[in-house]
C-alpha cells in the first residue's frame, strides 16, 4: 500500500484507498508501474455503513467480499493509512472527487476480473472438492468429466479449467489449475518441475505481451495468483516431498499451505500438527503467503501476523448438504456425527475462504504482479541485456 498525500480530505478513511487512484505530484517515492492500470475500485459506501462480518450468510455478500477484496477491504479489516492534508489548504464546498470511486467500480465491474488458482497435492486429498466448496460451484476438472474412470497419470500433468462465475453483479473468470500425478509415483524426484515450468511460462506469456509495440489494452492474465498446497494429515510432520516442493516454489508463486481432510484429527492433534508444521517451515526457510517481507505497514503486519499464526488452515471440503439442527449445511455424514464444513469448531474452511476470497484476493494478485512477476522480468532483462519490443505482426521467434 503506497501512502500518498492527498489533496482533499473530503474522503473519510472508511471508503477505501483513494490514494491508490491518484498520486500527488510531490510524492518522491511513488513508483509508477510501466502502464498505470487503474486499480479496481471499492464499492462506494456512505461513511456510516459497517463492513460485512465474515459470518454473514451467503447472499450478495457471498462473493461480495470480492468487492471488499478488490480494493482494500471494507471498513474495519484493511483500513488504509490515514490520509492527511497536503499543502494545508482547506476545502470550501464539495467538489465530488470521491465519485471517482464509483466510476472506477462501474468500469471494473463491467470488465470483470481474473483469478487463477493452482491446486497441488497427492491424489485423493480432496483438492477438487475443496475448490468446488470454496467457490460454491463445480469448477474443478472433475465436474466436466463425469463418468470417466479415475486414472493415475504416469507423470505430472497440468490441467487448467476456466469458468466465469458471477455474484452481486461482479463477474470473475476463475481458472483452476490442477496438477494430477504430483507425488503419486514411487519415485517423485523433481516432480515439481512441470509445475515451475508452467508458472514461468505464464510469466513469459505476460512479459511478451507487455513488451509488444502494439499491445492489448488489457493483457490476459494467466499467471498463477495462488498455489494451494495440500498437506497430508499424517499428524506427525511434513513429508520430505512437501518441503522440497515448497522450497523450490515459494519464491516464484504465492503458496498457501492447507491441511487436507482434517476430519481425521482431533482438535488437540490438529494444533500439535500445525505447530510442528509451522516450525518445520520456519526451520527450512519457507515463506508461505502472506509473506512477512511483503507486509507494507504495521496494520498489514498485525493482520497478517494473526493469519500466519493460524496457518496452515485445517480444512474439510464437501459438496453434499445435510440437515443439522434444522439448518441445511454442507458436510460429511459419518456413523458418529455430521462434520459441518462451515462450522469453525469443526474445521477452518470458513477461515480459509474468508482469507482467500473475501480479504486477500486482490492482494494475492498484486503480490504476484508486483513481486513474483517483477522478479521474473528482472531476471529475463538481465539475461539478454535488454528487451526488444516486437510488433504484434512479427511472426519470427521473439528477440527475447
Amino acid at each position: 500500500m503506497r501512502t500518498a498525500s492527498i489533496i482533499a480530505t473530503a474522503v473519510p478513511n472508511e471508503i477505501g484507498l483513494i490514494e491508490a487512484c491518484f498520486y500527488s505530484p510531490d510524492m518522491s517515492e511513488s513508483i509508477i508501474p510501466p502502464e498505470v492500470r487503474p486499480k479496481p475500485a471499492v464499492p462506494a459506501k456512505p461513511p456510516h455503513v459497517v463492513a460485512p462480518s465474515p459470518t454473514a450468510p451467503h447472499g450478495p455478500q457471498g462473493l461480495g467480499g470480492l468487492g471488499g477484496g478488490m480494493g482494500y477491504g471494507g471498513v474495519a479489516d484493511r483500513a488504509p493509512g490515514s490520509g492527511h492534508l497536503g499543502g494545508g489548504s482547506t476545502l470550501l464546498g464539495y467538489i465530488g472527487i470521491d465519485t471517482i470511486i464509483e466510476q472506477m467500480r462501474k468500469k471494473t465491474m463491467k470488465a470483470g476480473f481474473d483469478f487463477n488458482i493452482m491446486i497441488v497435492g497427492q491424489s485423493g486429498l480432496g483438492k477438487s472438492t475443496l475448490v468446488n466448496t470454496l467457490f460454491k460451484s463445480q469448477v474443478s476438472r472433475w465436474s466436466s468429466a463425469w463418468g470417466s474412470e479415475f486414472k493415475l497419470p504416469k507423470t505430472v500433468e497440468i490441467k487448467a479449467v476456466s469458468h466465469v462465475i458471477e455474484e452481486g453483479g461482479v463477474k470473475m473468470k476463475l481458472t483452476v489449475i490442477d496438477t494430477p500425478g504430483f507425488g503419486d509415483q514411487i519415485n517423485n524426484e523433481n516432480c515439481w518441475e512441470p509445475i515451475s515450468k508452467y508458472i514461468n511460462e505464464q510469466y513469459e506469456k505476460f512479459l511478451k505481451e507487455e513488451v509488444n509495440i502494439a499491445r492489448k489494452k488489457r493483457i490476459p492474465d494467466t499467471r498463477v495468483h495462488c498455489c494451494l498446497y495440500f498437506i497430508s494429515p499424517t499428524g506427525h510432520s511434513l513429508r520430505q516431498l512437501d518441503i522440497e516442493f515448497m522450497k523450490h516454489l515459494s519464491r516464484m508463486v504465492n503458496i498457501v499451505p492447507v491441511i487436507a481432510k482434517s476430519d481425521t484429527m482431533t482438535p488437540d492433534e490438529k494444533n500439535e500438527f500445525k505447530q510442528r508444521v509451522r516450525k518445520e517451515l520456519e526451520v527450512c526457510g519457507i515463506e508461505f503467503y502472506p509473506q512477512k517481507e511483503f507486509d507494507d505497514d504495521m496494520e498489514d503486519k498485525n493482520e497478517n501476523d494473526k493469519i500466519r499464526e493460524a496457518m496452515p488452515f485445517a480444512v474439510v471440503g464437501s459438496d453434499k448438504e445435510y440437515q443439522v439442527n434444522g439448518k441445511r449445511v454442507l458436510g460429511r455424514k459419518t456413523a458418529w456425527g455430521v462434520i459441518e464444513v462451515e462450522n469453525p469448531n469443526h474445521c477452518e474452511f470458513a477461515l480459509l475462504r474468508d482469507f482467500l476470497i473475501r480479504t486477500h484476493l486482490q492482494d494475492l494478485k498484486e503480490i504476484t504482479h508486483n513481486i513474483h512477476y517483477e522478479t521474473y522480468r528482472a531476471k529475463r532483462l538481465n539475461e539478454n541485456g535488454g528487451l526488444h519490443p516486437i510488433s504484434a505482426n512479427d511472426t519470427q521467434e521473439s528477440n527475447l
Partner: protein
Amino acid sequence: GMDAIMLQEKLVERLLCPRVRTARQKEKQYVGFATLPNQVHRKSVKKGFDFTLMVAGESGLGKSTLVNSLFLTDLYKDRKLLNAEERINQTVEIIKHTVDIEEKGVKLKLTIVDTPGFGDAVNNNECWRPITDYIEQQFEQYFRDESGLNRKNIQDNRVHCCLYFIPPFGHGLRPVDVEFMKALHEKVNVVPLIAKSDCLTPNEIKKLKDRVREEIDRFGIKVYQFPECDSDEDEEFKQLDKELKECCPFAVIGSNTVVEARGQRVRGRLYPWGIVEVENQSHCDFVKLRNMLIRSHMHDLKDVTCDVHYENYRAQCIQEMTSKLTQDNRMESPIPILPLATPDVETDRLIKMKDEELARMQEMLNKMQQQIHDGKEQ
C-alpha cells in the same frame, strides 16, 4: 462354570489344531487318547506361544496406535518422532519390540516388527528391499538352526503376518502399495488394512474397499486367504467366517486414549462432531481384525508361514545350494552355506566359526592321511 471351561477348551482347540478332527468323533472303544488335546494344551500353556507381527506403511497412518489398541499395550511411549529435516537421509529401518502378554494362564511372546521410513522419501524406489531382506534373514536363520545340531531351543523369529496400511486418502492402491505387496506376498502373509478410516463416510469406505479388492485381483497380489470352513463347524462360526471374508480389506481405527461414550469408558477418539469408538463394529472393523488375528486365525497364520512361505524359501535355498555344490566340487559340508542377502555381524561371526572348524577338520584329516602314508612307507 462348565460353560466357561467348554468355551475355553473350544478356544484352545482352535488355537492349537483347528483342522484336526478329534478322536471323540470316531466311535470306538474308549482307549483314552481323547485326552491328547488337553495334554497338548497343558504343555503348550506351560511353554507359551510366540507370534511375530510386522507392520508396514507410510508414517502417520496410525500403525503404532493400532498395535497398541490390538494388544492393549503402550509399546511406543518413548518414541521420538523425527522432523522432516532429520528424515532427509533416513533409510528404511527394521525395529523389533518384544512384549510378553499373559491372559488366563496363557502366555504369548509377541514380537512387533516395525518398518519406519518406508515410503517416506521423495524417491521410494525399492524401499521394500530392507523389509524383504529381513524376512529372508529370519528364514535363513531358522533354516540353519533347523539343520544344526542343537535343536532344542530353536528360536522362531520368522514373521507370521504383515499388516500393510493403505492410506484412506487415495482412490485405491497407489503404485508403491502394489509394488510392496507384490514384493512380499510370496514371503509372508500380507493382510492389507485401510488406515485411519474414521475420515471416510460409510459410502466412501465401501467404494474404497471395492476398488482395492478389484485392484488386488487385477495386479495378481496374493494376500492372505482365510482358510475354508470345515463343513462340520457350527453355523455361527460359518457366518462369522463369511462376514470376515467379505469385509476385507479391514477398515481400521486405533486409539491410545480412553473416552466416555454412552456411559462407558472405551478406547476412542473425541471429535467436536462425535465420538468414534474403536471397538464399535458399526464404526470400524477393528474388532474383526483383532478377532481374526488373535482369536481365530493366529495359528493358521503360523501354519501358512511354516508350511508355505518357509518351505518355498527352503526349497529354493536347497536348490541353489545343490547347484552351487556341484559347480564347486566342494567337500560335502554338514552345515549349509547359504548365500546371504545382507550379511550382518552375527551371521558373519557364525560363518567364520564354521569355516575355522572346517579348516581344523581338514587339517586333522590331512595329518591323519599323512600319518597313514608315513606308516605305510615304513
